[in-house]
């Protein structure tokens, strides 16, 4: 990519502040290679991984988030941006865990047992990745055991469950009850979503929050992560 456009911008030649701004633009445009390159350049210049994450990546995705909310960016564009974000995260992740810096957060997500609707769940997963979360997607038809195994094994912070059927919604409570029984409910933030759900239902089954859509999911996840630390 850079060879073709080398008469334009050479990332490594930009001063820090301009590079960060350029990375914001590149995130906006969903350019994964450029984001990986920019991330590496900042690290090479002595930036810490949390600094890069916060200023260059999360900062850029915040702009994407606002324009998505305002209807300027469409979902596929946001998902391209999320993909670019993921490319930067791939470089930062090993350094972050090495230095013991706190990652943004880890989410295990899946559609509950008996339910095959996964478009919404996939969207939430990708949006969460776009916000810097690591996402482990268990797919569809997920039972309580599988959820619990995955959150424990991956030391996740958030459990996300999706259900689109009134007949499968009750299973979310089964999973939460299983967490209770195992004595690990309080270790996790539980988010639930899906078209037939609402706030009262989320409350009734003992979830931390019901999220109407993927953008809300990202905001709520960030909020609850901040409150938990």
């Amino acid at each position, binding site marked *: 990519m850079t060879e073709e456009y080398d008469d334009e911008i050479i990332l490594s030649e930009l001063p820090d502040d301009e590079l960060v701004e350029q990375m914001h633009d590149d995130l906006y445009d969903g350019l994964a290679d450029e984001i990986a390159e920019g991330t590496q350049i900042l690290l090479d210049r002595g930036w810490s991984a949390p600094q890069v994450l916060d200023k260059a990546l999360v900062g850029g995705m915040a702009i994407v988030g606002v324009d998505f909310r305002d*209807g300027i960016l*469409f*979902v*596929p564009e946001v998902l391209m941006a999320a993909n670019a974000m993921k490319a930067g995260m791939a470089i930062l992740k090993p350094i972050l865990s090495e230095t013991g810096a706190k990652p943004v957060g880890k989410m295990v997500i899946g559609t509950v047992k*008996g339910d*095959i609707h*996964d*478009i*919404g769940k996939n*969207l939430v997963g990708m949006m969460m990745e776009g916000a810097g979360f690591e996402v482990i997607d268990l797919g*569809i038809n997920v039972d309580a055991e599988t959820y619990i195994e995955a959150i424990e094994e991956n030391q996740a912070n958030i459990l996300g469950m999706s259900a689109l059927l*009134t*007949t499968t919604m*009750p299973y979310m409570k089964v999973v939460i009850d299983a967490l209770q029984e195992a004595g690990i409910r309080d270790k996790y933030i539980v988010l639930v979503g899906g*078209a*037939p759900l609402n706030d009262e239902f989320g409350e009734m089954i003992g979830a931390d929050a019901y999220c109407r*859509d*993927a953008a809300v999911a990202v905001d709520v996840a960030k909020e609850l992560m901040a409150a938990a630390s």
Partner: protein
Amino acid sequence: MRRGRKARQQKPQKISAVGPGLPGGRFRPLTRSDEQQVHKTILDVLENIGMGDPIPIVKEKALERGCFMNEHGRLCFPRAFVEDAIARAPKNAHFFGRDPRHDMDVGDGRVHTYGGGEAVNMLDVGASSYRPSTLADLYDAARLVDRMDNIHALARLVVATEIEDQLTCDINSAYVSAAGTLKHTQLTFADASHVQPTLEMLYMIAGGKEKFHERPFCNGGGCPVISPLRYGQDNSEVCVESIAFGAPVWVTVAPQAGATAPAALAGAVVQATAEALAGMLMVHVVDPDTPVVLGPWPFVSDLRTGSFTGGSGEEAVVSAAAVQMINFYGLPSSVGAGMTDSKTPDYQAGYEKALAIALAAQAGCNDVSECSGMLGSLMALSLESMVIDNDLLGAVLRTVRGIEVNEETLSYEVMQQVVHGEGHYLRTEQTLGLMRTGYEYPALANRLTPGEWEEAGSTDIRQAAGERVKSILSSHYPDYIDPATDAKIRERFPILLAPENMRPGNQRW
């Protein structure tokens, strides 16, 4: 003469310009060459990309018949196999009502309008917010469908969300359907193991197993495909088990353009049709004589938010194109049309429904589904909307009927007579003959003069619809299951709608 007219007024005979089974198919969004290209691509998809995760019985039977698993472990259907199966498959699907008046002969572009549903909310008469739907709502919907001339059959329009046990829910849903209407009813099942117990109950209603199978007034089916191009286990099993009805099996797929189907509409038509054929083939390898109603329902994503949108122009044209492809194969077809995104029966609901329903019907869809009362992107049912839709369907079907052109209807002689005679057509033989049979009259559409309308309180169609719903539902409590049988059914099955909720004086109406 005078007495005759009086008698007619007292006992008005409903004559209609339209009815079930009008021949459609004049609207073709794809050219002949488009059709061929789509067809060729569909065969490529089924032969080379194939379907993921077939259930064991389907895989076994398909492999026996020369299908193969490709290097990705996907079940592939050779083109010759697909073409033979299409040639061999039943082209017509006969649906029985409990009353033969409601029989439907589905196939060959004959248009019927019914079905769909499984909304989880109700918009009550006059309400401005949704509430969770219940078994009583499904019973009321069945009673209303029973009285709607242009809604030709019933399906589970709403889910009894208060019933947690799914077998109980499936049995009760079948029960209230049979209690509410004599029209054919399309059933759904959460699990294949629910088919037999439900059939047992239907046998009791029919007066015996043989009686039921003589005229099976219910059928089953499901959505056996998780797009893109993968079978879903539970619903595959339901579809196969539904062969037991001895009635056509419905198979619906709903790939969403932009999300689980290509954003290019041609690609969405290819995938939806290929998936519907894959659903048909699944039933076909188990029993080639069972007719399948193929439902390639290409859905559309609003790519600004990712949400499903059923009311767009894209949805209307892509569904009509899918119908065209199923007609190209000569097989029975269904698409969802009328899946408005509006939350109330308003102007948006009206234009979105009319557009999609008209195109699907004009394309010659055998089962224009989701056209009876659905709102909010399939999230809610409104009975007010259902009675308005009945008018809408009447008007659409009138356009399907089209214009009969012959020497008589071209009217040269009538014109000549009128020009040399009275100077108007109001009193001609022709007008008298056609005023009822050639014209469809809506029950609710307001055709008053502005002055009359103001005098009548300046009401809008939703108010009129609410009145009609109340008037029908407070009086139409049919006894379609005789009390003795009903008692026996209640002894054997956990029926959750109390008899007092099925007669006048209940709290609902």
